[in-house]
């Protein structure tokens, strides 16, 4: 059984004046433990694809099946719980909450589970150690470098042990050295912890290191 299955996915954005076809009849299957990269020019629908897989957005038509569960017209609470349990996000611009320190940022996904503050704090410390940032626990995001911010974002993405990690150009705002460090962490998560990763990237070198690459153009999968 595939971990992620998209069947006939289309996404149309409608405004008063214009209709934009972001995705057209996309069919994708991602196996458990696979590291898939998604490539294509800007505006081809890569991020839209990621948002739909991540249940952040709903398709105009088609089905999204995650780990055998079809996500269709489910109540918001159910979808939110499913997303919390199954999916972790890593964004290009990190999207850390600026008013919270590092450890509080990492704890965010666990706020929506029934675990105690002590346990939450302990788990956060463990994942920060994993990404090599345990010495920066009480720093604010504004005090960190880009690479460090992204490592905090990775820690936040994995603290809930999600099966799937969705990374939208995770090294896009980093230099090559930091980018390499981030990719190393992602590969470790994929190979050693068998996490399924879908990564949007513009970097051919990074894409070659993943198990499979698919390409998009004007909302359609071309490869």
């Amino acid at each position, binding site marked *: 059984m595939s971990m992620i299955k998209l069947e006939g996915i289309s996404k149309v954005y409608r405004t008063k004046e214009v209709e934009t076809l972001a995705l057209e009849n996309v069919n994708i299957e991602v196996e458990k433990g696979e590291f898939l990269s998604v490539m294509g020019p800007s505006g081809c629908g890569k991020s839209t694809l990621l*948002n739909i897989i*991540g249940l*952040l*957005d709903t398709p105009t038509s088609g089905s999204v099946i995650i780990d055998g569960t079809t996500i269709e017209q489910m109540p*918001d*609470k159910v979808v*939110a*719980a499913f*997303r*919390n*349990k199954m999916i972790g*996000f890593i*964004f290009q611009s990190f*999207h*850390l*909450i*600026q*008013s*919270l320190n590092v450890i*509080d940022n990492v704890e*965010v*996904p666990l*706020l*929506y*589970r029934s675990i105690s*503050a002590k346990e939450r704090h302990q788990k956060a410390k463990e994942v920060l150690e994993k990404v090599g940032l345990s010495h920066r626990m009480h720093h604010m995001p504004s005090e960190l470098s880009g690479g460090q911010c992204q490592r905090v974002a990775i820690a*936040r993405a994995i603290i*809930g042990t999600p099966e799937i990690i969705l990374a939208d150009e995770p090294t896009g705002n980093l230099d090559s050295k930091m980018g390499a460090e981030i990719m190393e962490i992602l590969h470790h998560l994929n190979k050693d912890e068998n996490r399924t990763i879908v990564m949007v990237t513009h970097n051919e070198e990074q894409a070659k290191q993943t198990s499979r690459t698919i390409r998009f153009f004007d909302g359609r999968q071309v490869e």
Partner: protein
Amino acid sequence: MFKQYIKNIWASLKQDSVVTIINILGTALAIFLIMVVVLMQEVKVLPFSPESNRDLFLICNALTETSIGKENTSMTSGRMSEATAKELFSSLKNVKDVTLFSGGGGLSKLVSANKSIPMQAESAYTDDAFWRVFDFKFLSGKPFDNATFKAGQKVVVISESVARHLFHDVNVAGREIEMDFVPYRICGVVRDVSLIASQAYAQLWIPYTTSDIVKLTSGLDNVKLGGTFSAVILANSKSDFPKIKAQVNARVAAINSRIKADKVKLELKGRPMTQFESSITTWSNELPEPGKFYRKAAIILLILLLVPAINLSSMTQSRLRRYITEIGIRRAFGCPRSRLLSDIINENLVLSVIAGIVGLLFCVIFAYFASDMLFTSDWSGFFGHPTVSLSLLLNPKIFLFAFIFCFILNLMSTIIPALHASHTNIVNALNGRTR
């Protein structure tokens, strides 16, 4: 979770201190205004010495005589004569006690002692039951008893400030003073009474049997049921009120039978009244209308709540707009809409409670130091001060009112922005867009 809200509020304060402080002060001011309005009514009803039994009082301070079946209808309203008051209220069943008194602080006397500088003080003529119905705090001596009252002995209970003015001391029971050049013996000294104690207030309390005040009558034609007396009934419990009123109504009917030939009708217009009813009734010939009072109060409170709520709502909306990305992040990591909604409302509630405490503090300080401004009527003409004790101001009921208003204000100002924020598309929220 509460810790989380405090953390978020603190972070908000650090990040956006001006807006957060304005938000808190705005809410505090709204609560302050509302609580002043509530307090102005509550001090008329809350029990405090010497009217600690306000919950069990039934008050009659007026009657109305109306001519019936005549060409020109006339009506007069005012206090009762001593005879009428006795006929209506003495020997009632299911009561602990009844007091008849005249003045309530409206009669002033020139008081002097030895070579002290004379002063004007407000007096009341009372019976001996007065001291059982009201709980005065005696600093020296004791009240006059039934024997002294019946004998018409010239004794007086004076207030602390009168004692200090005349003798520079409060231990003056047994000493003599002159009131309007007539000598009286002091039988007791009591703590000063606030003007807010509308029934018990005076500075001198004298047995009414020492005065011709009992002879004063007024009213229509030969009937003349009116005079200068009021009555306060101390019931055993509130459940006895209907029985007591029924007895009084029967006595009114009996009087009306007797005076029918004079073509005059006696009405008490809903009296004797509870403390609350008395507090909302201004005129002698007016019936208490709790419904009208509550409607008026609800409209005033709604306006006092709505105006700041709309203002705060727009501040909340703009605050949430600033945090829209954070909302997107939380939603992306599994926060359901309902949780987001409750988090926003609860966080604002904590903010409102903080503001409410500040507002209540302002209100208490203002009421304590500006009691003259708040609690004196223009036409009172009394020398006394409407002092309020801190124990009256820091009453649990006042706190409860303040908390309820905080909660309502919070809900009114937060619900729409919170609903809007929770329904923003996650992707748009992540990108800082509110739609």
